[in-house]
């Protein structure tokens, strides 16, 4: 689906953001990209739809070399949702906002309207159709921005920090929606600092530091690796801490466990055994 080969990128030829990144994301995967600010995560996902072009190396999308493809062409395959919704909202109603992207990508007026309604109802935003995005709260604007990209039904959905400023319930519904997309065969990629969000929902994690991939694999093994956590400035989430602390006390506990249900079942076994 997406293949990057030895991609290098530096801004103004001075600040090197990517130094030889190679990765492959297959159709239908859901992947989290984690790392410190300035590790190159955002630079990386901007290569997925051609906003940035590799200064060395290649980017392949669905088996095709992308060097001759325009951003608009790539955007049909890869939908990018940025961190700040205010960077894209500019029309007087949410409906127009969503239709805008669709029309840019070549949908007719009727198609655009139909998809628009579908997307709004899928995200539970029906009431927002005629409202101005500027009158909405930050969290709501974020959902409208997401809807405007979702409506184009890209094969790959890549989101930059989707959980920032979202409360627990909004995060849950975001996760549910992403997993639903994923079940339908779409590829989902998120860039995030939210380690618990990743542990609970994403089977694969790519950890980045200083423009390089330092670990790529099962979330449960990447995010329990102390050196990786250290290099990516990540802190141990509570359940992993609990697992480690339990391991000190009980021999039969693996300190690789990380999710809520894992700890719940271990605790149940231990307590019921006593």
């Amino acid at each position: 689906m997406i293949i990057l080969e030895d991609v290098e990128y530096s801004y103004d030829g001075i600040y090197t953001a990517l130094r030889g990144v190679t990765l492959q994301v297959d159709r239908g995967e859901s992947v989290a990209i984690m790392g410190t600010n300035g590790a190159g995560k955002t630079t990386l996902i901007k290569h997925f739809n051609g906003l940035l072009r590799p200064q060395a190396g290649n980017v392949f999308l669905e088996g095709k070399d992308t060097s001759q493809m325009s951003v608009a062409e790539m955007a049909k395959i890869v939908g990018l949702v940025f961190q700040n919704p205010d960077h894209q909202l500019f029309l007087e109603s949410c409906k127009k906002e969503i239709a805008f992207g669709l029309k840019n990508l070549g949908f007719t007026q009727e198609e655009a309207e139909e998809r628009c309604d579908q997307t709004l109802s899928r995200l539970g935003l029906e009431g927002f159709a005629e409202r101005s995005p500027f009158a909405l709260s930050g969290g709501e604007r974020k959902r409208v921005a997401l809807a405007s990209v979702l409506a184009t039904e890209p094969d790959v959905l890549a989101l930059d920090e989707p959980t920032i400023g979202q409360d627990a319930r909004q995060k849950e519904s975001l996760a549910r929606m992403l997993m639903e997309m994923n079940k339908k065969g779409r590829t989902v990629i998120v860039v995030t600092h939210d380690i618990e969000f990743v542990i609970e929902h994403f089977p694969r994690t790519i950890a980045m530091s200083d423009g390089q991939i330092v670990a790529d694999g099962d979330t449960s093994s990447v995010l329990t690796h102390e050196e990786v956590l250290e290099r990516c400035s990540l802190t141990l989430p509570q359940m992993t801490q609990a697992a480690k602390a339990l391991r000190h006390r009980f021999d039969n506990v693996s300190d690789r466990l990380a999710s809520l249900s894992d700890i719940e079942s271990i605790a149940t076994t231990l307590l019921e055994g006593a």
Partner: protein
Amino acid sequence: MALVKFDDFSYKYYGADSLALKKINLTIDNGEYVVITGPSGCGKTTLCRAINGLVPRFHRGYIAGHVYVDEKDTREHEVAHFAAIAGLVFQNPENQLVTLNVEKEIAFGPENLGVNPVEVRRRVEEIIDLLDLEHLRDKHPHEMSGGEQQRVAMAATLALNPQILVADEPTSNLDPKSAEKILEIISTLNKRGMTVVLVEHRLDLVAKEATRVVLMDRGRIVADGTPTEVLVADICQDIGVGIPKATEIYKRLNAKGLRLGSVPLTGEELALLIQEGTV
């Protein structure tokens, strides 16, 4: 009298459909570490703004009731009057750094209030030392990371010598390590006697240090008590507030009839309690 006292305070922004705060009664005493939390749009930010008079002075709207800060009614004094009592730190560090270097930024507040230059210099040095900013002294905002910027923003607020530090989601734009550092500073300040009001979603990071958690929903205070009291209550799930995972496990075990000795707020505590439970 309490340092901060909300007395039946209600507030609606001009042009808004509904009240941002509804009949808030809340007192905050010296030395407390109060975490305010609740779902998006519950009124946390408005509450913070009411503590130094930004609401209703800067953000105009309809008011009922009163807020007293250091025994002074916020309706009757300028925001500047409260600047040296309640210091606010906001979510986005970039928007709080208005000068071109760190020293100037820290000096900005006290200079505005007309503090004697020798004293301003003394405070700048003291705070640079306290928050470990020596290496940033001459840096331009663009030369700093988000975490560093937020530390400077906090320094700039502390330079006013406030009695109470009000921080509105100061870590939400930061990576986990930088966030941890900011929260560490806040907790250290509290231990040195500073009263702290902190708005935070991620209770797993702050519940351990807080002395009190105030839960808000749709403009009202719906729970107020010690962290363990509030976080274990079912209302958290009802309004959609994420509680620490360790506390969540406690509740799940409880539902199965497995009781732990007390309510854990961290993974370590949870492990300890499980061990005690098996003995």
